């Protein structure tokens, strides 16, 4: 009974310490966030109201390079005091470098249809039908070949080029994927201004502070959960029925 009382008292002292630290960290977090948003305001003042906005987010290649890892740890009472185990988490910021997406594997090309035996081992470009050949095939399929007054003269186009060839459309998304994701600061301009660098530094410190706050609150949750269990047990013991 005495040991439990000692543990409860130490838990209570720890809860008060953690509460004070949590409030202090959150006030510091608020100051840092305000510092970053002031930098955004300076950027908007210099470059216009839309210099920093949601419309500039790069949704095609946005990848998280700042992550957080949560490692469980148990909270034990003072040495020599038996205590029910509670689990809290340690949070650490993890910086991951950019990893460009792997290019999709190209589809296997169909085998050459040269009509000749490939005994010599050479690969031949497949014969491309001319527009006239396509037209004649279509007429034959419709059964109208005989009605043609004269067979259209075939153009001597054996170079494989199609009359209707048009340049392939440019796939901007594929080019961006190949280049890889950009750092977020470059979404807002090719040459980041000092204000944007200042904002980036402020919010990077915010992420570190958030990890620390998460750790403190995790321990607070574990201690309050354990204290709640103790309070219920104490109430049951004190109940005359």
């Amino acid at each position: 009974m005495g040991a439990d009382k000692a543990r409860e008292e130490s838990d209570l002292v720890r809860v008060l310490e953690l509460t004070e630290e949590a409030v202090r960290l959150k006030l510091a977090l608020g100051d840092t966030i305000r510092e970053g948003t002031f930098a955004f305001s300076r950027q908007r003042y210099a470059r216009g109201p839309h210099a920093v906005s949601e419309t500039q987010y790069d949704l095609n290649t946005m990848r998280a390079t700042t992550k957080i890892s949560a490692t469980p740890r148990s909270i034990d009472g003072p040495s020599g005091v038996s205590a029910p185990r509670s689990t809290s988490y340690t949070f650490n910021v993890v910086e991951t470098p950019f990893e460009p997406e792997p290019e999709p594997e190209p589809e296997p090309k169909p085998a050459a249809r040269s009509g000749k035996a490939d005994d010599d081992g050479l690969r031949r470009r497949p014969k491309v039908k001319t527009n006239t050949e396509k037209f004649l095939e279509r007429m034959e399929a419709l059964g109208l070949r005989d009605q043609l007054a004269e067979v259209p003269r075939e153009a001597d186009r054996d170079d494989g080029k199609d009359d209707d060839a048009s340049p392939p459309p440019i796939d901007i998304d594929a080019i961006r994927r190949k280049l890889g994701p950009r750092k977020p600061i470059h979404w807002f301009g090719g040459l980041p201004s000092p204000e944007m660098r200042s904002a980036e530094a402020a919010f990077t410190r915010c992420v570190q502070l958030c990890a620390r706050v998460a750790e403190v609150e995790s321990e607070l949750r574990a201690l309050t959960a354990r204290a709640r269990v103790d309070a219920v047990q104490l109430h049951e013991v004190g109940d005359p029925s």
Partner: protein
Amino acid sequence: MATEGKGALISVIGDEDTVTGFLLAGVGEVDVRRRTNYLVVGDKTTTKQIEEAFKEMTSREDVAVVLISQFAADSIRYLVNEYDKPIPAVLEIPSKDRPYDATKDSVLQRVHHLMGAEDAAATTTATGAR
């Protein structure tokens, strides 16, 4: 678990400047299904949208921490208060024009209630011992 080792994502629910700032720090992610780990709360954002985003982010296995501005948390206070999972951890953060209010923080409220419960239990025990 996705939260150990290589790390897990940090989700953000807040105003435009707060979200932009954390994205600038490199926490933003858009997956192949065009699903984001952030929500910008503006004048036209409804409570239902905030609620759905909060539920989605707290149920994802690749998210370790959910940062939510206190003004957004106030609009879904019932959801934030009843959330009690250790991971993902939900942190209420201040925003640029609304300073941090410790009396509304769900974790600190829980501590406050606990203090009150402990006092009541101690009083009951002392009364029973007489």
